[in-house]
Structure formats: structure tokens, C-alpha cells
């Protein structure tokens, strides 16, 4: 009897484990089939490099270059803001502060991850956007920069928690050795701790980027969604995610527009897949050491 239960449970757990793998494969093949049908009717180079996204007027044009640039700009900006902030926060939490304060700080940072993206977008729209417009004296505050700032807020918890783990897993002997040789605390942190924990920190950053590039609601609310190719980060941009969210509701299923949106989905999926894969590689490297 006990053995039967045991094997049954084993089977169930195996099934659950396989299920997520199957889902990923199914989603991927679904995206791939829809996009393949699209690329048979529309040149793939025109799709990637086309400058204009006019899906519902004559003649149709499904160029996502401006969307790619938009996603890229917002993500880059968010990284520039989030990475230094979060790595320093992680250092502070794991190296500098006392244990009591550390627990409070860590749970507060993790709490940040629980704020729904709509709320972040809403705050951005009401508070940040007018400030950005006045501060930089530009025509509108709905810019890639506003998106970057809000997205940085969303990436910080991810980056902080994972890089903090990486920093804490640096063996104590390394630090003690450095301090014993007369290095100051800052020298130890910079030369020893950061260097040893680097693969983990890079993985954390990668996962943060993955979160940022897939974010939809916040960017839709604060980046202005203009599909012109921007010249600077202080111009409105439209991201790939925002296009899918805004337009999937009105497309006739099976039409070119519908398939084009799935193709954007495929591009996004590939990008996040590569980023996550790279993160895994770095994390694996960290563990082997």
C-alpha cells in the first residue's frame, strides 16, 4: 500500500514538473506557427527594419523597428538607473548594516515587488510625468525617460534580492583574509566581494532586464506610445508590449494584423528567452566556483 502511494505521488509530481515544460513548448510553437503564417505574407526584413507601424490603414505597413528602438531605449534607461542603485543597496544590506535593520530593509525591498504595475503606472502618470516635463522643459512628460524611471522601480527588488544572495555567498575567509592583510572595508568590498560575486550580480541584472522588457501596463501609461523613431530618451516611444496589449482586442482573429501581433510576441519571447538563458549561464558559473 505504502509503495503504491509512493509511486503514485511520484508520478503526480513528475506530471506537474513536465506540465510547465509542456506549456512553454506549446506557447512557443503556437507563437511560431502564427508568426510563420505571417512571414509567408509579409517580408521578415520589412517587419524588423520597417519604420512605420500602420496596421489598419491602406497600404498596411508592419514595421516594428520603431517599437524595437522604443523597447530598447526604455530598458537601457531603466538599467542605467536600477543597476547601480540596486547593487549598492545589496552591498549595504549584506555588508554594512546591522542584522536587525537588515531584516527590515530586505522585507521592505521585497515588498516593492508586490506593488501592481498599474499602480506604478498610475503614480508615474500623475506624479512623475508633470515633473519630467517641467524639469527638462520638454513638450510632454510622457517620454521614454519616465518609463525608465518607473520600470527601474520594478526591477530594483529583483536585482537587489538576487545580488544580495550572491554577495552573501562570498566565503567569509576571503573577506577576513583581505582585512587581515590591511585592506580597508571599501577595498575589500570592491576588490574581493564584488569580484567574487560578479557572476551572481550579472545574473541578477539579466533577470531584472527580463522583467523590464516584458512589462506592459506601466510603459503603456507613461511612455506616450508614439510610434515615431525617437532621437533621444526625452521623446515619447512605443514599446512592443504596449502595441500587443493595445491592439490585440480589436483584431479579427486570423487576419494579418493579428498574426503580426503574434510575431511581435515571438520577437519578445526570443529576447526574454535569450536574456534568461544568459542569466542561467552566469548563475550556473557562480555555483560551480
Amino acid at each position, binding site marked *: 500500500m505504502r509503495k503504491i502511494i509512493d509511486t503514485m505521488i511520484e508520478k503526480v509530481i513528475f506530471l506537474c514538473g513536465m506540465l510547465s515544460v509542456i506549456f512553454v513548448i506549446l506557447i512557443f510553437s503556437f507563437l511560431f506557427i502564427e508568426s510563420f503564417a505571417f512571414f509567408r505574407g509579409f517580408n521578415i526584413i520589412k517587419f524588423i527594419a520597417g519604420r*512605420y507601424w*500602420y*496596421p*489598419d*490603414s*491602406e497600404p498596411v505597413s508592419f514595421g516594428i523597428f520603431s517599437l524595437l528602438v522604443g523597447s530598447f531605449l526604455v530598458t537601457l534607461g531603466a538599467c542605467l538607473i536600477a543597476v547601480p542603485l540596486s547593487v549598492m543597496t545589496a552591498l549595504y544590506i549584506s555588508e554594512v548594516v546591522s542584522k536587525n535593520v537588515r531584516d527590515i530593509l530586505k522585507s521592505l525591498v521585497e515588498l516593492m515587488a508586490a506593488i501592481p504595475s498599474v499602480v506604478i503606472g498610475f503614480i508615474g*502618470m*500623475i506624479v512623475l*510625468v*508633470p515633473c519630467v*516635463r517641467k524639469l527638462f522643459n520638454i*513638450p*510632454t*512628460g*510622457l517620454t521614454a525617460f519616465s518609463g525608465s524611471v518607473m520600470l527601474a522601480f520594478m526591477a530594483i527588488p529583483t536585482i537587489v534580492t538576487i545580488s544580495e544572495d550572491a554577495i552573501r555567498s562570498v566565503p567569509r575567509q576571503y573577506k577576513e583574509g583581505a582585512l587581515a592583510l590591511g585592506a580597508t572595508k571599501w577595498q575589500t568590498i570592491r576588490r574581493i566581494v564584488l569580484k567574487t560575486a560578479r557572476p551572481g550580480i550579472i545574473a541578477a541584472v539579466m533577470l531584472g532586464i527580463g522583467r523590464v522588457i516584458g512589462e506592459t501596463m506601466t510603459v*503603456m*501609461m507613461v511612455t*506616450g*506610445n*508614439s*510610434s*515615431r523613431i525617437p532621437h533621444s530618451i526625452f521623446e*515619447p516611444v*512605443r514599446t512592443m508590449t504596449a502595441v500587443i496589449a*493595445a*491592439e490585440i*482586442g*480589436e483584431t479579427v482573429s486570423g487576419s494579418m494584423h493579428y498574426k503580426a501581433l503574434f510575431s511581435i510576441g515571438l520577437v519578445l519571447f526570443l529576447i526574454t528567452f535569450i536574456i534568461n538563458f544568459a542569466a542561467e549561464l552566469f548563475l550556473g558559473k557562480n555555483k560551480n566556483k
Partner: protein
Amino acid sequence: MYKVKGFVMCFNNHTRYYSVKVLFFFLTSLFFCSCTKSQSEKDKYFSSMQIKGSDTVVNLIQELSEEFSRQHPSFNIGVTGGGSGNGFVSLVSGTCDIAMSSREIEKKEIMLAKSNNIEPNEFKIGLDGIVVIVNRNNPVNKLTLEQLRDIFTAKITNWKEVGGEDREIVILSRESNSGTYIFFEERVLGCGDEDNCNRFAVQSLIMPSSQAIYNEVFQNPNALGYTGIGFVNGGVKAISVAVNANSEYVYPTLENVMNYTYPILRPLYLYTNGMRIRNVVKMFIDYVLSEAGQKIVLKTSFVPIKKKEQKNKIKNYRSV
């Protein structure tokens, strides 16, 4: 620590008992459901109806149907959005009794309906005025339709070209699934004789909702956007619009929309199947066109239609 353990144990006992109770309740309710369903099925067919279509009209009809059900509690009305075209498709395929629409039915759709033995019957239930709004501090008060077209297609990019300050114009638009977007594109941007319609400029910002447009216009003196007449209040300024430079500029008030002097307006419709009109549907349409119904139209910030038009419509459908 002990206290916690005790609590957990008591909780466990409790939940076991609780789950048995839930199961029992579930089974009995299932039993009752299966008994009563077949009985009420027949009545349900006569007292329930489905309304589908335009997202612009859906809030209004929702409000109306709630009030209607309050007066006639035995009726069961389902209201869903999805767009005007969606409503017509459902009407033709017989999955809804009333289609809501913010545009007139197309010839193509009438043909399709007739081939399915359905006669679309039109009722005008109200008017919707689309208002162009700017920031309160913007000195521009009036624009012609032509100027509006040039602004939204980015031929005019600075406020000083239309009598304002030397500021760049920030164009706010809606997503292409918005009925307001489609209407504005048709009415203001317009098409040539052939298929070369004007498009919204690439640099126009696509906002996710009317509220988002309002927020941006409220705080940004460079912005201009369009929205339903209900969104105009002290926070933003509505623009008076003239058909061309020679005609009069009309401010978008309810009266001006009601007597068709404001140029950017559209009627809202309900469509029914004229071949087979059920009692519930008839009662509902009568209610919408009644004085009480039109009051709700006004309350949900649409414009009621004039009495004369209503009467025509009612006559029109009684003769069917």
C-alpha cells in the same frame, strides 16, 4: 510556541469539519439546480435577452438595463461590449437580441443579415459629441475643422500657427480599437474620394483611455486631445469648432449637440431583428426612448434625442 501548535491543530480539526459541510452543501445545491433548471428554462427564454456591441454605448445601456430590471425584476438582461461590428455579427448569427452601435449599419452588413433572414431595425437612442480639449492656460479658444485636421496630421506643429503661444503641439489620440478614434478619424481627418485617407500623425501619442487624455491635457499646456462630451469640466478647456473659416464657431454644449449645430457629433443606435420582435425587447426599447430612459442618457453624459425624432422611430417600428 505551544500556543501556536495548539492553534494549528484546532484549525486542522475545524477545517476538516468545515470541508465536509461544504461538500454536503455543494451536493445538495447541485441536486436542486438540476431539478429547477428544466422548469425555468422556458420562462427564461421569454424574460431574458442579450445586448451586444459598441464599447461607447455599453455603459449607457448597462445603466439603462439595471434601471429596467429594477422595475421589472423578472427580466434578465446581459450586456456585453466588444465593438459595433461585433454587435452586428451577433445580431446576424442570432446570439443577441439587440445590437448597440455608434455608427450606422453598413450595406454589407444589411445584406448579410437579410441572407440570414434577419431584418435589422434601427433606433436612434441618443447623440454623442466629441470634444477637442486643451489646457486651461492655452489661449486658443476656437479652431476650424480644417485646422484640426492639419494639427492631427502634423501639418501644423506649433500653437502659434493657430493663434496661440510659441509652443510645440503635443497630439493625444486613442488606440485604434476605440470607437471614438475611428469616428474622429472619419469625421475630422477625413478621406479623399478614394482610399487615401488621412492618418493620425506618427508622433501623436496613443493614450490608453479617455481619462489618460484628460490627465495629460490637464497638466500639460502643449497638449490637445479629443474625448466624449462628458469629460469636459473645469479642469480642461473645450474648443469651439467651425466647419470652415466662414462659418460660425460653435462651443460644445449639450444644447448645441442636441440641435446639430456642433459639427463633431454622431448618433448612437440600437438595432433589433425586425422579423421577430419579442415582448421583452420591445418593452426595453420603449423604456430607452421614454422620458425616464432619456434622462439616464443625459446622466451618462450623452445627449438625448429630440422628441420628434423619437416619435418617428416608434411609429417606424410599430408598423413592422
